[in-house]
């Protein structure tokens, strides 16, 4: 039962990341391999705001009841969203936009995003060091809920915060002009252009919203586990898997895909482990978690029916 809770937590984090990736894939028509790096950057930006900026303003130390962090963490999350989104929008202006204007295809854009991912990862390693970081060194006791579910208050916060953000994003996409334009552009970019929608503005908003959500996902992962320079890279496969399962540009699809991948990884691993154990095979499954996402993606690609364009 606890695997399910772990799956939901990981799934929430993947879902937040996948929403942004799904939107950029559909609107910009390339696979942004640097989206994992947005999670990474978000997590470390949060760390810097929390441990470098806020203490100078005298904001530190206080914690919410039960949680391992307090109000400064909320400021750190918001700060990380703004900073990370700003950096990625700048990258778009200086790297992807010139390429788009020159008519570069998805392959060129995808490859340059791969280089951006490597650059960001190594910059993070240079600036913050290769060691593992934690937002808080406090050890949290997990509490036992009905049905024997063990969960820490932090983990409940992660799920709750994700739900709030998903609802807010959905309201934005549904009820604002820019949100509707983002959906329109991801539905049919050519038509969006002939309709007069300012697609460049839509692109900036898409990067902004998608990256801000990824930044939160990075911080939430940091709260739940730890911060390390490779975390963005490890998220890339589950993120793409979630987007492909959910369908590019599909908001609910990305969410459902994220939860599916998270659950499959956390529930599938122990299930396969016990299967191998019962067959007396000495295989340790823990290293193969991402493989489950990969297998899932391959199965979906094989089974899914394709829309004709």
């Amino acid at each position, binding site marked *: 039962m606890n695997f399910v809770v772990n799956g939901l937590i990981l799934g929430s984090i993947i879902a937040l990341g996948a929403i942004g990736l799904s939107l950029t894939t559909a609107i910009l028509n390339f696979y942004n391999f640097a989206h994992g790096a947005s999670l990474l950057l978000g997590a470390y930006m949060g760390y810097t705001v929390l441990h470098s900026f806020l203490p100078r303003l005298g904001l530190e130390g206080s914690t919410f009841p039960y949680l391992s962090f307090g109000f400064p963490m909320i400021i750190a999350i918001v700060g990380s969203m703004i900073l990370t989104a700003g950096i990625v929008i700048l990258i778009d202006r200086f790297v992807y936009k010139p390429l788009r204007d020159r008519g570069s295809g998805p392959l060129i854009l995808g490859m340059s995003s791969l280089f951006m991912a490597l650059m960001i990862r190594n910059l993070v390693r240079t600036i913050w060091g290769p060691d593992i970081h934690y937002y808080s060194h406090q050890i949290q006791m997990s509490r036992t809920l009905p049905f024997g579910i063990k969960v820490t208050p932090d983990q409940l916060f992660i799920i709750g915060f994700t739900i709030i953000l998903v609802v807010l994003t959905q309201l934005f996409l549904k009820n604002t002009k820019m949100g509707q334009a983002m959906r329109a552009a991801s*539905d049919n970019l050519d038509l969006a*252009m002939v309709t*007069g929608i300012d697609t460049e503005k839509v692109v900036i908003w898409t990067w902004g919203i998608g990256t801000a959500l990824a930044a939160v996902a990075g911080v939430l992962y940091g709260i739940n586990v730890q911060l390390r320079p490779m975390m963005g890279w490890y998220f890339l496969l589950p993120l793409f898997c979630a987007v492909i399962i959910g369908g590019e540009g599909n908001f609910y699809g990305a969410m459902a895909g994220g939860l599916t991948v998270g659950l499959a990884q956390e529930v599938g691993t122990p299930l396969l482990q016990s299967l191998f154990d019962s067959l007396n095979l000495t295989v340790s499954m823990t290293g193969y978690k991402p493989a489950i996402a990969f297998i899932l993606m391959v199965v979906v690609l094989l089974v899914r029916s394709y829309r004709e364009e």
Partner: protein
Amino acid sequence: MKTIFGLLTPTDGTVILNDEDIGGLKPNQIVRKNMSYVPQTSNIFTSLTVLENLNMGAFIREDDYSDRIREIFQIFPKLEGYKKQYAGKLSGGEQQMVAMGRALMLEPTVLLLDEPSAGLAPNLVDMILDKVKGINETGVALLIVEQNAKDVLEISDRGYVLAMGRKEYQDTGQGLLENDEVGELYLGG
């Protein structure tokens, strides 16, 4: 038609609208010149509701355009009942109405229609062409590319026959219909 609307760059010739050369302008600049375009295929946002499609048609409008939406629903009364429906769930004829409604949101003086009757059942073709005539009577000039030439020529003031990209015949709609040569070569007798 794609060239007129700035999706393709003209290699030769000029595109003139109201004495202004608009050749080479981008689509989002052209819509500000009071010209709208309904592409032949994928001309609606399928994952948006009918109302959202109309909102997108008015994307560049900063003013309150609720009156315009009411007018569109007067032209296409059927759409009002479906305004909260996803446009992709509507029938072909209804989708064509959404597409034209979307293009009319900017109150264009010129409307480009690319094969408005393509893929529609014959009775729907008549209905759509009726609407086209109605739109024209409200003072909108229409430029229509159509394979189903007979029906459209009947309601056209002017007609042009293009063959291999060159203009072969030019006359009033009625004139082309009565032209024996055009009839034999292009309209199937």
